[in-house]
């Protein structure tokens, strides 16, 4: 029992941040799985974070209720961004989304009444690990349902070959617009989760480090299944702590090396549904027939 308590005392913060980063990574996955590489998640997280912080500050809302508002706010922001961004070619969209990260920071710094400006904002409520877990479970269930529905199937088609998908009656614009909405809602919740975990947010909370966390977690965990980003977020979050415990002298280098090794050995990420399908392909039922 004591061992468990010790473990909890030492690692509850890591677990909390793993849960928070899972939302951020899922937000990135939501658009990536429809063929859009975009850093707009950072902006959606900022919108969600500051909306949640303001709601909690003004109405003393419980964190999970604030998450709902943050999700809606992120979704609204995403709708606006999607209308503008979906006019751009994919690589320009990625660049524009990086620009949006910089714009977000400038806006946050220059609207002190909404965001606290350079001073940042204190968040008077702290979300519990259990609440974070519940919110992530609900979000994961939404992703599970999407993956196994028409939306999941056609978004994979759009990602693999948008022009072929379009000749099958699939509107790539519509699919990617929906992807942005989901990314916005989940990103907003992630921003609120971050705000209520850190209990202090400023322009630097929603900046390049978050963009890096988002993309690294998703690539590391695998962007071909919704479970990948969650696994990736936990591995990426736990890595610094683990390296600090194992190789304290060279922890930063070790962290980089581990990331590189995983990405070289498993370029499609830790969770890859293709592996499972290949195994199914080679099952005795079908493998016995010689190739025509």
């Amino acid at each position: 029992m004591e061992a468990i308590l010790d473990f909890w005392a030492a690692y509850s913060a890591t677990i909390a941040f793993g849960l928070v980063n899972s939302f951020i990574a899922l937000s990135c996955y939501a658009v990536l799985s429809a063929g859009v590489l975009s850093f707009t998640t950072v902006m959606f997280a900022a919108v969600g974070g500051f909306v949640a912080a303001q709601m909690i500050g003004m109405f003393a809302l419980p964190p999970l209720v604030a998450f709902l508002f943050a999700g809606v706010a992120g979704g609204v922001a995403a709708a606006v961004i999607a209308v503008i961004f979906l006019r751009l070619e994919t690589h320009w969209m990625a660049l524009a989304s990086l620009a949006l990260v910089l714009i977000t920071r400038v806006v946050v710094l220059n609207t002190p009444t909404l965001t606290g400006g350079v001073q940042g904002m204190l968040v008077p409520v702290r979300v519990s690990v259990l609440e974070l877990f519940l919110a992530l479970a609900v979000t994961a269930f939404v992703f599970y349902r999407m993956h196994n529905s028409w939306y999941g199937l056609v978004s994979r088609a759009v990602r693999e070959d948008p022009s072929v998908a379009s000749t099958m009656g699939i509107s790539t614009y519509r699919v990617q617009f929906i992807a942005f909405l989901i990314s916005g809602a989940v990103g907003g919740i992630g921003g609120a989760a971050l705000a209520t975990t850190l209990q202090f947010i400023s322009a630097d909370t929603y900046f390049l480090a978050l963009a890096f966390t988002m993309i690294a977690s998703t690539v590391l965990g695998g962007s071909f299944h919704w479970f990948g980003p969650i696994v990736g977020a936990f591995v990426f979050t736990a890595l610094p702590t683990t390296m600090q415990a194992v190789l304290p002298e060279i922890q930063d280098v070790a962290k980089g090396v581990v990331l590189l090794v995983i990405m070289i050995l498993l370029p499609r990420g830790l969770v890859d549904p293709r592996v499972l399908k290949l195994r199914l392909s080679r099952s005795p039922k079908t493998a016995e027939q010689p190739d025509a």
Partner: protein
Amino acid sequence: MHDTPTLLQLRAVAKHFGGVAAVGGLSTTVRKGTVHGLIGPNGAGKTTVINLITGLFHPTDGEILFDGHNLEAKPPHEIAALGISRTYQNVRLFSGMSALEQVLTGCFLKRGSSLFASFAGLPAARRNWEEARAKSLLLLARVGMAGKADVLAETLSYGEQRRIEIARALGSDPKLLLLDEPTAGMNHAESQAIGQLVHELRDSGLTILMVEHNMGLVTEFCDSCTVMNFGKLLAEGTPRSCIDDPEVQAAYFGRKNDAKRIQPVG
């Protein structure tokens, strides 16, 4: 045969890429319930015509009429919804999907329930999903790929991938099926099987426009054909009359004088 109604009509369709006219004022008609061949030497603009019909390109000039609709400036997904489906010259299946998933994606237009209903798992949507699955399995069986439903498509042979692509194109219950060189890279027996399948599909009421290089196959399986060269119409009519056309023979085999010129000396 000429009293059957027209399904697809191209009127002076042109497509320029910069200064190059890939298609330069092509007019032709495809009649309902026929297998129509689109033939011509390499670079004649056949695939460009297919891309124009499916909306991947938009014509620089002229118009394309399909089943009473003008396809002008319509995006590909709207054209597909009107009942046009296609396969690709170099097979373009979705990577990472099983054979069944490929065909299921092709059934998207006939899914019967909204994306949201499907996400929410409403009873009607579940039923529609199961129906689409059953239909996909039937289509796989129809192209001779029963039992390969769970196989990752990219691990199959080229000929098998072509069959899956045809099954995928049939998923939307199209009125017009465009096959871009369906027998490329296939041996004689496989080509014959594709020809048989095309006939079966026609007999079930489908209209087929197919780009084909294999003249034997064209004479055997097409009811009528259009011959193109350098983006223009060269000949039109029954396969036999097209092949006997001196212009067509010149385009394919060169002129008599050309043959003399390239004959080895001595």
